[in-house]
């Protein structure tokens, strides 16, 4: 890579860092503006106004917002998101396991989306307007348009309640992990993965249709086999677009986990998030929000960088 390319990459990373800073501010203000007093949650309703005021002082909640934000940001920069107001435990320790569960959910959903979208999108894109294309594209629009929780409820109705094959609630017994109980993952992954697969199928189809240009036609006319044309001439041309689309998808799946996790009581970040909202646990809320946003921003950055590095024309544009 040339010096100019490095500089452009550095600018994009810097821009992503600025975005993260802005997002952190929006999140902090949105969280700290929550009505309700965490002091009351912790101390109970019997606590006197004085006791509550003292508690608020201990936690520094009486200080002005900009000061608290600066403090919090300083902590984050050192890798310390603070301590939960409810449990008194370090936030980082408490969100480690839910984050792991959310990541597992997203990883399987992403894999499902990847496989299904390539298997459906490539044949659909090779014959745009054909019967298969109309069927697959129509189904994709349908799945994308239906709210996630409706898909989740319908899957639960069929596979958990009617057939009884899978658990309706993703409870992992104490002392076990998802490796011991892989069945709890099936319905959440199907719900989130079906959305990802539908979205990605449209992307793959569009990329294949776009790539099917004069060069590919020339390779066909030269008498190369269909498989060879596909592998050597068509698919390589879709890589830049698809790399970008799948990076986007990864971020989108993380952002979309909240509803799925809630429906199945899946032990990921969202169950943590919901209880933190109920308890007004500010440090916990801010940390979870920041982690989710950080993942989305990182995915967007990767998509942006891939698009830039794969596309020589973008490199010459300002």
């Amino acid at each position, binding site marked *: 890579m040339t010096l100019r390319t490095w500089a452009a990459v550095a600018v994009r990373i810097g821009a992503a860092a600025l975005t993260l800073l802005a997002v952190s501010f929006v999140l902090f203000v949105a969280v700290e503006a929550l009505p309700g007093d965490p002091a009351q949650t912790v101390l109970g309703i019997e606590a006197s106004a004085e006791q509550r005021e003292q508690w608020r002082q201990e936690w520094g909640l009486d200080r002005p917002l900009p000061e608290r934000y600066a403090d919090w940001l300083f902590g984050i920069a050192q890798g310390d998101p603070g301590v939960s107001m409810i449990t008194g435990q370090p936030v980082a320790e408490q969100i480690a396991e839910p984050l792991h569960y959310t990541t597992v959910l997203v990883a399987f959903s992403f894999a499902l989306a990847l496989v299904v979208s390539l298997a459906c999108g490539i044949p659909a894109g090779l014959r745009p307007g054909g019967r298969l294309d109309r069927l697959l594209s129509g189904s994709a629009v349908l799945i994308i348009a239906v709210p996630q929780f*409706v898909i989740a*409820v319908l899957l639960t109705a069929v596979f958990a309640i009617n057939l009884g094959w899978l658990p309706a609630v993703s409870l992992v017994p104490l002392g076990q992990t998802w490796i011991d109980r892989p069945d709890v993952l099936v319905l959440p992954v199907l719900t989130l993965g079906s959305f990802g697969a539908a979205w990605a199928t449209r992307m793959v189809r569009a990329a294949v249709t776009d790539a099917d240009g004069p060069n590919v036609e020339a390779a066909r006319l030269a008498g190369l086999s269909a498989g060879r044309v596909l592998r050597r001439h068509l698919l390589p041309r879709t890589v830049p677009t698809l790399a970008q689309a799948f990076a986007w998808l990864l971020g989108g799946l993380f*952002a979309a986990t909240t509803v799925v996790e809630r429906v199945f009581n899946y032990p990921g970040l969202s169950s943590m998030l919901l209880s933190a*909202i109920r308890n007004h646990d500010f440090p916990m809320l801010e940390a979870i929000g920041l982690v989710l946003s950080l993942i989305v921003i990182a995915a967007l950055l990767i998509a942006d960088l891939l698009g830039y590095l794969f596309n020589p024309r973008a490199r010459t544009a300002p």
Partner: protein
Amino acid sequence: MNAAKRAARAALYAPVLAVLALALAGPEAVRRPTDILASPFAPRGGDLPLGSDHMGRDVWAMLLSGGRELVLIPVVAVALTVVIGTAAGMSAGYRGGVLDAVISRIDTVALSIPVVLLMLLLLHNRGYSAGTMIVIILFASIPFVSRLARAATIQIARSDYVEQATATGSGPGRTMTVEIAPGVLAPVLADAGTRLSVAVGLTATAGFLGFTDSAPNWGRMINDNIAGISLNPWATLAPSLLLVVLAVGANYLIDDLTRRFIT
């Protein structure tokens, strides 16, 4: 258009229009949908065409009165989104410079905050209301429209006919509205169907997550009644079906209308 195609289209539209009519006019047809008329999850039959829900209320009456907001809030929010997003994207694309940098950065920041997270915070913070819901939808959809409009504007602004218009003395205001806007609206309106589906989904999700008090709401009905799905499946399946037709149908309807008016 031949007769077979027309029949196919009517078959597609009929359920969508029926659901829209039910959602919009339904609240006028029932007086007190939340009256308790039977035991919980009573099966369908007699006075209750779709049985009763988890509290023993008439599922059919709840359906009639629980869809209007799911239509009105998304329609208003998406109309605002199209206007604001197009204006922001066109200004960014046409003026460039600092304005472009600021608008593009705002879009990126908004896209980086998970919508459902923001929705949970705002609904907890301010409570559920049509206004709050519209703000959330605007937040979730303006960045997409703005980016789309910006890209289209940049492309069109380079074209020959815009240069000609500028050369023959068309000012920036006139060029934007007369020469560029029609070309920008085409991709924006083509995308509006998706925005409407997303908006219906978000509004129903707010209900599903239990934010809409006790007022009837299709999303909320699904959450309330899933526990009794083996006793009275209609209490869960009927609102699910209506939501699917609404979300998907809204998308097709807008797509079809824009295609007819633009091309």
